[in-house]
Structures are given as C-alpha cells and as structure tokens.
C-alpha cells in the first residue's frame, strides 16, 4: 500500500517537472521506479500522515514562518539590535524517524530558534536569538503538533527542559 | 519604463560580474577563490537568464557552479592539506 502511494507521489512529481507531455515518460517511468526504490532504501517504514492533519499543520507552519520572519526583521532593523544569543538544550521525545527530522527542521523556521546539534539521539541543542526566554513551552507545543501529525500522542506534562 | 529598468538591471549585473571575476582571480586564499567562483557561476547563470537563454543558464548553474564548485572545493582542500604536510611555505593555498 505504501509502495503504491510512493509511486503515485513520484509520478505526480514527474508531471510537475515536465508538464503534460506523453513523450517524456520514456525517461519518466525508469526515473520514477528508481526514485521509489531509492526512497525505500533510505527511509524506513514510517506512518503516513492523514490529509486533514497535514492541512492543519501546513496552516500552522505558514503562520509560524510569517511570525518568524517578522520577528527576525524587527530584531535586525533596530539601530541597536535587540539580541542576546545563546544555547538551550531540549530533550526530544518523538520516536518516529520522519517525525524527528520534521521536528528538527521546523525548529529552524520557528521564531527565534535554530536547531544546532543532536546529542545522544534525543538532546537537541537549540540556538536562540534571545536566550533569556525559556524556549521549552513553545518547542513542546511544536513537538506535540508534529507528533500528532504522525499519529504519536505526547502527553502535555513534563516537557523536557534540561 | 521597462527599457530603463532593464538597463539598470544590466548595469548592476555586469558591474558585479566583472567585480566577482576580478576578486576570484586575485584572491590569495584558495578556498575563498572557490567560493567566489561559485558565486560567479550563479551570477553568470542570472546573466544568461537575462539574455533569454534558459538552457545555457541551466547548464551554467548545474555544471559551472554546482559540480565544478564542489570538485574545486575538494581540490582546494587537498592542496591545502599537501601544503601543510610540506611545511606550509611553498604552496600559495597553504595557510596551514
């Protein structure tokens, strides 16, 4: 079942690249098969998120990236820049590999935070433009949303600030 | 209106392109020269796009800046390593 979805996805991708051109499938079919095989080799089995949840996450993500851009712009544009950079550590609880990658990448697009390093498979070192604030609640919220996207329910209490 | 804008666009593009080429040529540090070369390749691709030649721009971006840049980066790294092994005096890239 997952194989069929991946095949369909790569076919769609090829369609986007080349437009509606039947001749292009001479190269397209082998490429799609190769890409599906390579994807299966690289990425283990991971639950596919549902469409409704993906839409919800995309909306949240767009809102957050606008907030992040405005935040960084307002900090840079002050004559005396309002920054006190530093590092904080956050303990990640997600288990699904795709969810972990998505979480680490999304941190970098969230306001004021940048994922810098992953230690011992669960501790993320986060660089913040304003390290005087406690980042843990916001990161825990993002983590819960990413977890829900991949069908992994995280409890609300004891978000892991180290 | 558009013609004037395009003239301005061309002026900025050409001035910076020549500046980048000179900076890449006279740079004493090899890796800096490679970085400038990658930037030069991207810039040249923009010039080809401006001249309405998307196929040439495609080739320039993929081969000139991408593949060429990555290979030259590896070559500069190897040169620096050899220079530091030789005492770091002779080769120009050897800042050791």
């Amino acid at each position, binding site marked *: 079942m997952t194989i069929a979805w991946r095949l369909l996805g790569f076919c769609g991708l090829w369609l986007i*690249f080349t437009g509606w051109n039947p001749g292009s499938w001479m190269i397209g079919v082998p490429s799609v098969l190769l890409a599906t095989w390579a994807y299966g080799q690289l990425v283990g089995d991971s639950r596919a998120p549902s469409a409704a949840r993906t839409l919800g996450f995309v909306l949240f993500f767009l809102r957050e990236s606008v907030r*992040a851009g405005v935040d*960084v*712009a307002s900090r*840079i544009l002050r004559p005396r*820049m309002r920054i006190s950079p530093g590092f904080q550590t956050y303990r990640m609880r997600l288990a699904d590999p795709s969810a972990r990658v998505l979480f680490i990448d*999304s941190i970098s697009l969230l306001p004021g935070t940048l994922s810098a*390093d992953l230690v011992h498979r669960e501790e993320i070192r986060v660089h913040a433009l304003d390290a005087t604030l406690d980042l843990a609640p916001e990161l825990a919220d993002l983590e819960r949303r990413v977890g829900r996207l991949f069908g992994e329910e995280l409890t609300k209490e004891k978000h892991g600030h180290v | 209106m558009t013609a004037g804008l395009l003239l301005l666009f061309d002026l900025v593009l050409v001035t910076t392109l020549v500046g980048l080429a000179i900076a890449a040529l006279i740079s004493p540090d090899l890796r800096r020269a490679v970085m400038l070369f990658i930037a030069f390749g991207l810039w040249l691709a923009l010039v080809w796009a401006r001249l309405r030649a998307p196929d040439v721009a495609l080739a320039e971006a993929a081969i000139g800046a991408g593949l060429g840049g990555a290979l030259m980066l590896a070559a500069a790294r190897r040169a620096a390593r050899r220079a530091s092994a030789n005492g770091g005096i002779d080769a120009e890239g050897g800042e050791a």
Partner: protein
Amino acid sequence: MEILLETVSLLLVGAGAFFFAVGTLGLVRLPDLFCRLHALTKADNLGLGLVIAGLLPWAADPFLALKLVLIWLLVMLSGATGSYLIAKRALRGDGEDLLE
C-alpha cells in the same frame, strides 16, 4: 477584479523583496555565525514564499504553479537542513574546512 489582483500581487512581491533585503542586512550586520544563520533561514524563506505567492495568480498553467510551490518547499528543506549542518559542524569544531 484585475486591479485588485494586481494590487495584491504588488503587495506580496514588495513584501518579499523587503524580507530579502532584511535577510541581507542581517547577514552583513549580525555579530556571529549562528545569528547570521537565523537571518539567512527565516528572512529568506519568508521572502521567497511571499514572492512566489505574488507570482502564483499569473502562472499560465497549473503545472507551473505547482512547480513554484515545489521550489519553495525545496528551498525550505535545503535551507533548514543546511543551517543545521553548518551549525553542528561549527559547534563541534570538526568540520573539515568550515572554520579556520
């Protein structure tokens, strides 16, 4: 209707150009490598997203529109992953030719 679309498009592209300019300013102005990464990832992704959003209504066919969205997704993915890689190597100091 046409006028409305043009105005929205103009505003979006203008805002995108503004965020690109801010990203460049941040890259030149901010004091250290990690802060510059912040400016690079966030301001540029938002700028590109706004420019693409402004261009979308003028796309001739749906495939082109989808291609634009795909470009934005790719830039976000490579931007976030690239900044993670640079920050990690810089933090651990074991990048082969990052810092010297």
